[in-house]
C-alpha cells in the first residue's frame, strides 16, 4: 500500500505523460462526442437546423417526454425485450452445450469442430443475411422444407409479423453462439481436473458433476458471457436492418434501429440522441444487476 502511495506522488507526472496520448484519444473520440450527444438530446436538431443553426431550439427534456409517449418507441422497446428474453438464454444455452460437447474427452477432431462452429461469428453479416433469406423463403426455403414433413405448413418467416422476430432470433443465435462458446471452452479448461476426480471418488455422476462442479466453477465466465450477450442483444440493429428493415408492421423494429431511422432517415438528431441515452440507461441496469449477482457469487 505504502509503495503505491509513494508512486502516486513521485511518479504522477511521467505516468500521466505516458497515459496522455491514450487519454487524449479517449477524450476526443469518446467523451467529447458523448457530451455532444447529451447536448444534442436537449435540442430539436433536424434538417431545418442543418440548413441554418438559427432553426435550432433548446427543448430541455422535451425529447424524453415525447419518447415516453411515443407508441413507436414502446413497440421498439417491446420488440427488443422480446428479442433479449428469447435470444439471450437460447444463445447462452447453445454456447454452453457446444462448449461442453467440445470439452468432453470422447470428442474427436475438436479443433475442426471449434473452427466450424466459430465460423458464423467471423462471417460478414450481409452475406449471412443473403443466405438466411433463402433459408427463410416461404416456398423454396430450407426451414420450411424441414418443417413440412412434421406437418407444419409453409410459414412466411420474414413476411408475417408473428414469425419475423423468431426468424431474426434463429439467425442471430446461429451467428453468435460460437463466440460465447470459445470463451466458455476457455473457462472449462481452467477448472482443475482434481475437482472432478474428487467428485468421482465421492460417487458423483455426470449430472451431479455438471451441477456441482462445472457450473459453480464456471460462474465468473458465465456472468461475463451473460453481460456481454445482454449488452449485444439490447443493441439489436444490423440483423433487422439487413433482413427486414424493421418490418413487417414494425414487428422487428428494435430500439437501435428506431434510433437509426429517426437519426439518419428522418434526420431528427435531437430525438435520436434522446433514444440513445434512454437505451444507455436501459443497458446499465441489467449490466449492474448481473454484475452484482456475479460478485455475490464470488464472495459466497
Amino acid at each position, binding site marked *: 500500500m505504502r509503495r503505491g502511495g509513494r508512486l502516486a506522488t513521485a511518479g504522477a507526472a511521467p505516468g500521466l505523460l505516458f497515459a496522455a496520448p491514450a487519454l487524449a484519444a479517449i477524450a476526443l*473520440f*469518446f467523451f*467529447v*462526442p*458523448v*457530451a*455532444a*450527444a447529451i447536448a*444534442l438530446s436537449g435540442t*430539436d436538431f*433536424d*434538417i*431545418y437546423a*442543418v*440548413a*441554418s443553426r438559427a*432553426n435550432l*431550439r433548446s427543448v430541455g427534456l422535451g425529447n424524453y417526454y415525447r419518447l415516453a409517449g411515443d407508441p413507436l418507441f414502446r413497440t421498439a422497446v417491446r420488440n427488443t425485450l422480446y428479442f433479449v428474453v428469447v435470444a439471450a438464454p437460447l444463445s447462452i444455452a447453445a454456447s454452453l452445450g457446444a462448449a461442453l460437447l467440445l470439452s468432453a474427452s470422447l470428442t474427436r477432431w475438436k479443433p475442426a469442430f471449434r473452427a466450424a462452429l466459430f465460423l458464423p461469428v467471423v462471417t*460478414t*453479416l*450481409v452475406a449471412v443475411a443473403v443466405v438466411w433469406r433463402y433459408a427463410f423463403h*416461404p416456398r423454396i426455403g430450407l426451414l420450411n422444407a424441414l418443417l413440412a414433413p412434421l406437418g407444419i405448413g409453409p410459414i*412466411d418467416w420474414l*413476411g*408475417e409479423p408473428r414469425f419475423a422476430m423468431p426468424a431474426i432470433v434463429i439467425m442471430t443465435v446461429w451467428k453468435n453462439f460460437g463466440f460465447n462458446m470459445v470463451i466458455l471452452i476457455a473457462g472449462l479448461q481452467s477448472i482443475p481436473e482434481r475437482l472432478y476426480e474428487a467428485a468421482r471418488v465421492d460417487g458423483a455422476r455426470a449430472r451431479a458433476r455438471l451441477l456441482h462442479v462445472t457450473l459453480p466453477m464456471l460462474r465468473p465466465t458465465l456472468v461475463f458471457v451473460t453481460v456481454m450477450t445482454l449488452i*449485444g442483444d*439490447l*443493441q439489436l*440493429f*444490423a440483423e433487422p*436492418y*439487413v433482413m427486414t*428493415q424493421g*418490418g*413487417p*408492421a414494425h414487428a422487428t423494429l428494435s430500439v*437501435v434501429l428506431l*434510433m*437509426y431511422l429517426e*437519426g*439518419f*432517415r*428522418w*434526420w431528427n*438528431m435531437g430525438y*435520436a*440522441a434522446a433514444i*440513445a*441515452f434512454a*437505451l*444507455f440507461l436501459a*443497458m446499465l441496469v441489467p449490466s449492474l444487476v448481473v454484475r452484482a449477482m456475479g460478485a455475490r457469487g464470488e464472495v459466497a
Partner: protein
Amino acid sequence: MRWRQGSGSGLLVAVVGAALAAAGGCRAASDADVLEFWAMGREGEVVQQLVPEFERRHPGVRVRVQQIPWGAAHEKLLTAYVGEAMPDVVQVGNTWLAELVALGALAPVAADLAAASDEFPGVVAATAIDGERFGVPWYVDTRVLFYRRDLLRAVGVDAPPPTWDGWVAAMEQLVRGGERYAVLLPLAEWETPVILALQHGAALLRDGDRFGDFRSPAFGAAIAFYRSLFRRGLAPGAGAAQSANVYQDFASGWFAMFLSGPWNLGEMSRRLPALADAWTTTPLPTFTGAGPGVSLAGGASLAVVRTTPRADLAWRWIAFLAEPAQQLAFWRLTGDLPARPSAWHAAGLAEAPRTAAFWRQLARVQAPPTVPEWERIAAKITEHVEAVVRGGVALDDGLAALDRDVDSILEKRRWMLDRAEAGRS
C-alpha cells in the same frame, strides 16, 4: 452495416462526418471537367448508356455516374449534404424535393429549362416549392388501374366503368360465389387512400400546410369508402395481402385488379407472358363521373446541387437527358415513361393500348403537398388508415389520432413560418 454503437450516436456523427469530408476531399482534387451524377436503382444502371453521346457532344467532359440503391438513397443524400460530399447532379424522387430545398441543397431550375412547354403541368407542379422550380422531370409516374379484361368480361362487363359505383358493382359480380377477391390494395402503401382523398377534394393539410386536415369530411368519406372495399370482401384483408405473390395471384385470378404504376407494364409482360392480352390498364375511375379521376403525380426529377462549381455543365447534362430523343432512348432502356409529351407522340405511346391509360391519366394528376415533412406524414397516414381498416380503431378516432400526429410533425414548420412572418412585419 456493422454498427453496434448504442450510447454514442455523437461518435457516429463524428465518424461519418470525417469519412464524408475525406470523400469530398478526394472529389475536389479530381479533374474539373468530370461531372458527378447520382442516379438511383435501375435508372442508375442504364443511364450509363446515354453518357457516350453527351461526351461526344462535349469534348473533354466526362460524366461519372454513381448508382445508389433506392432503399439507401434518402439517407445517403442527407448525409452527403451534411458532409459536403454532394455530387453535381442528382436524381431526386419528387416527394423528396421539398426536404432538400428546405436544406438549401438544390439550385433553382435554369431559366431556359424552366420555360420549356413540352411537359405535363401536373408533374411540373410537383417540382415547384413555393412557386419556384427545383427539378426537371426525368420520367413521370402515376397510378392507374390494372385489370383482367377476361375476368370482367366473364361477369358481363365489357368496358371499364368510368365511376367507382360502376366498378364496385362489377367487383361485387367478380367475388360472387368464389374464394377470391376483386381488387388488391396493399395496406402498407399510402398512395391509394391519398388518391381517394384527393378525388374527394381533400386538401390533406390546411392553413398553409401548417396543420393536418384529416378530420375533414372529404378525407373521412374517402377512408370510409376505402374501408368498405375490405369490409365487403372485395379486397383481401391485411395478412393475406402481404404474403401474396402479386403476379401469381393476378394470373390465377385470385384478384382481378390493382392500382399500380408504369414499372408494372414491363414486369407484367415479363413475368406473365401466358396472360398475354388478358390484362390491360385504364385511368382511375371517379366519384362524380367526369373522368378520369385524379391520380398522384409521381416520378423523379433531375436537380443541380446548389454548391456545384460546374453548374453550367450540370444544366447542359440535364437538358440533354430531357431531350425527347434521349427520353425515348431511356424509355426503351427502362420502361420509365417520358416526361416530354412530344416523346410520347413520337413513339406512339399515347395511342398504344397499355400506355394510353397513363397518357390520359397524366392529364389528371395532382402532387401531394410539397412540404419537407411529407414522407413522415405519409408514413403516419399508412399507419392510422391501416388501424382503421383492420377494425381496431373507429374511423373518427383514427383520423383524430392522425391529425394529432401530423400536427406534432408540423410543429417545427409552424414555428418557422410564424417566425418568418414576424420578421417580415
